[in-house]
């Protein structure tokens, strides 16, 4: 018995001693490693973060940098517990990515309390930089407002006036529907109805029938990844577009379009923050990414993770410390954060990274020359038009 006690005690001491000794700075990629966001974020986000650390030189303020990974299983409680342990016990100085807005909301409460940098790439609820905003957050890639505004306005101005929503029933879906409604009404359209479905629905036919019967010009999908793909596939079955109704996927990642195939996705108009085949810089980075990801093309989220981690490291180095997320963000606000991903970009006090967005059209199968050749860029939406202005911001950090 005494022996056992000694063993336990000595183990505890050894462990705590190693923890205290030369702990590297850790970047925690908190993502979905097992669920429906695995392809659009997941392993690709981890690789993107590692690439950024390597390109930065692997050292921050003289210490090593290490990338660690956590699977939040799309559950807010799992995500926030992991984030808390990371920050408290593992010297994590930045939490990165975090798909699923409800998880990001929970994690943001922790990073706010602990003043740790929170670099959001996948989570898109615009509430993260509105009423829930935090001084140590940068929402890097996209948000529901930008997508709603880009796609919603383009389609309404193109003559599709009456909208019907099929919306996923949680924070993100609600935000996307509300933001799109605003954009549609502002452009002279109207919303004639909506139906809410639970996350990870396998059958959309009931909702599709209701949308079909509504007589709307556009049926808008305010959901994401697996749900969007299933819905698109089943809408084709019911002959929605052949009967003259338009379909709008409000959030489509490159992997979603690949998942349903061009046969089904062709001619969809969507808004994205990044497409790999835009210019030499995007192609060069994407080629390096593909090499490490078995030839897969990066989504906007992956490019965003790289850009966010890289700029975070630069800002932390410049501010002389990494522990206080809000101080790093303050430094970043005065910095040039343009790169292959960010164009005409700057970080705002509410945590929003403003940059150009792109309106694209999905190519027809006959137009696509290779597996990753999916989009035609229709227009660039300047950052200040793409994202919500600070004028009506509900973020308490915005001084008016």
């Amino acid at each position, binding site marked *: 018995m005494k022996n056992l006690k000694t063993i336990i005690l000595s183990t505890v001491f050894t462990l705590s001693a190693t923890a205290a000794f030369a702990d590297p700075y850790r970047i925690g990629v908190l993502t979905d490693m*097992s*669920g*429906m*966001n*695995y*392809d*659009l974020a*997941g392993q690709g986000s981890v690789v993107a973060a590692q690439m950024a650390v390597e390109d930065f030189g692997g050292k921050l303020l003289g210490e090593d940098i290490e990338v660690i990974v956590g699977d939040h299983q799309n559950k807010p409680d799992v995500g926030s517990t992991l984030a808390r342990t990371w920050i408290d016990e593992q010297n994590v100085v930045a939490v990165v990515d975090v798909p699923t807005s409800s998880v990001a909301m929970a994690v943001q409460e922790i990073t706010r309390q602990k003043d740790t940098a929170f670099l959001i790439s996948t989570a898109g609820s615009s509430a993260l930089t509105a009423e829930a905003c935090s001084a140590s957050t940068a929402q890097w890639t996209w948000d529901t407002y930008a997508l709603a505004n880009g796609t919603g306005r383009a389609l309404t101005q193109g003559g599709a006036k009456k909208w019907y929503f099929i919306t996923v*029933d949680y924070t993100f879906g609600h935000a996307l529907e509300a933001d799109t409604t605003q954009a549609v009404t502002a452009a002279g359209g109207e919303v004639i109805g909506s*139906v*809410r*479905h*639970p996350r*990870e*629905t*396998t*059958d959309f*036919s*009931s*909702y599709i*029938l*209701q949308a*079909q*019967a509504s007589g709307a010009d556009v049926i808008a999908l305010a959901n994401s*990844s*697996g749900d969007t*793909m*299933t819905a698109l*596939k*089943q809408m084709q*079955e*019911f*002959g929605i577009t052949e*009967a003259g109704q338009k379909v709008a996927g409000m959030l489509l990642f490159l*992997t*979603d379009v*690949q*998942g*349903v*195939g061009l*046969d*089904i996705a062709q001619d969809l108009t969507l808004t994205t923050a990044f497409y790999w085949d835009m210019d030499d810089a995007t192609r060069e980075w994407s080629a390096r990414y593909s090499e490490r990801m078995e030839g897969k093309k990066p989504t906007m989220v992956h490019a965003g993770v790289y850009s966010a981690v890289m700029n975070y490291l630069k800002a932390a180095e410049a501010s002389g410390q990494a522990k206080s997320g809000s101080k790093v963000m303050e430094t970043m606000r005065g910095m040039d954060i343009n790169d292959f991903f960010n164009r005409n970009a700057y970080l705002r006090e509410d945590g929003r990274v403003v940059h150009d967005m792109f309106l694209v059209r999905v190519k027809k199968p006959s137009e696509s020359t290779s597996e990753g050749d999916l989009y035609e860029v229709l227009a660039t939406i300047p950052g200040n038009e793409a994202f919500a202005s600070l004028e009506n911001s509900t973020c308490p950090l915005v001084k008016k």
Partner: protein
Amino acid sequence: MTTIFGVALPVLTGQFLIGLINGSFYALLSLGLAVIFGLLRIVNFAHGAFYMLGAFAAWMLLNYAGIGYWGALFLAPLVVAVVGMVIERTMLRALYGLDHLYGLLFTFGLALLLEGGFRHYFGTSGQPYAAPEALRGATNIGFMVLPNYRGWVVLASLVVCLGTWAIIEKTKIGAYLRAATENSTLVQAFGVNVPVLLTLTYGFGCALAGVAGVLAAPLFQVSPLMGSNLIIIVFAVVVIGGMGSILGAIVTGYMLGIVEGLCKVFYPEAANIVVFVIMAIVLLLRPAGLFGKDS
């Protein structure tokens, strides 16, 4: 226009039909579970994974061997059955004498392994699988536009379900099976090879999941997660129908599909819990399930 609770009749009929289509999957899957539980007393948590395996087998047959939908409809369930039988022979067999919990945990672990393996190689976005040429398009049947393929699914599942029921309840093999569940030692004494019977039964149950998987492939994304999305509901169906009751599983499957479909019209937010609410009520009022015998 005639309305019921403010919903137009054609819309309602459409939803009814759609419920029937979803019910087809519930019925096929819960039937397999009921067969396996009824005869082997194994709570087969890997059933969702076998369903996923059926869909992936169809996809692989098409992409690696060039075998289309109709070939896959026969071959894929066969593949799944073989995988199931190997697992039964080599692993599951060791758990027969033990508490139900061991079988449940083992098959749950198996499901996680299978799903994890497929996720590693195929990711979670899923692979597209087109419906066969002959069943593409849709037919306007007056009150709604019915995709031809969905009509086929209802038909196919009805045939498979009724066929299975007939085999187990009306044939000699079925009689052996039922006898083996009641008293396997006695049946063995009559010269029936019970272990082989059990292996075949498990294989058959898995094949039913495989059939459902192939039927589902053109409707949903062929994705490693497709089974885990469905399996919990299917278990609820089995519990409501009465564990091990073949007819119960079939009828409850279709019925719950319809209830769920109607719920999506009247109160969509509750659509994913309505099955569980019904399960709770049934368990309170009839703990053995709607078609189960109290034992």
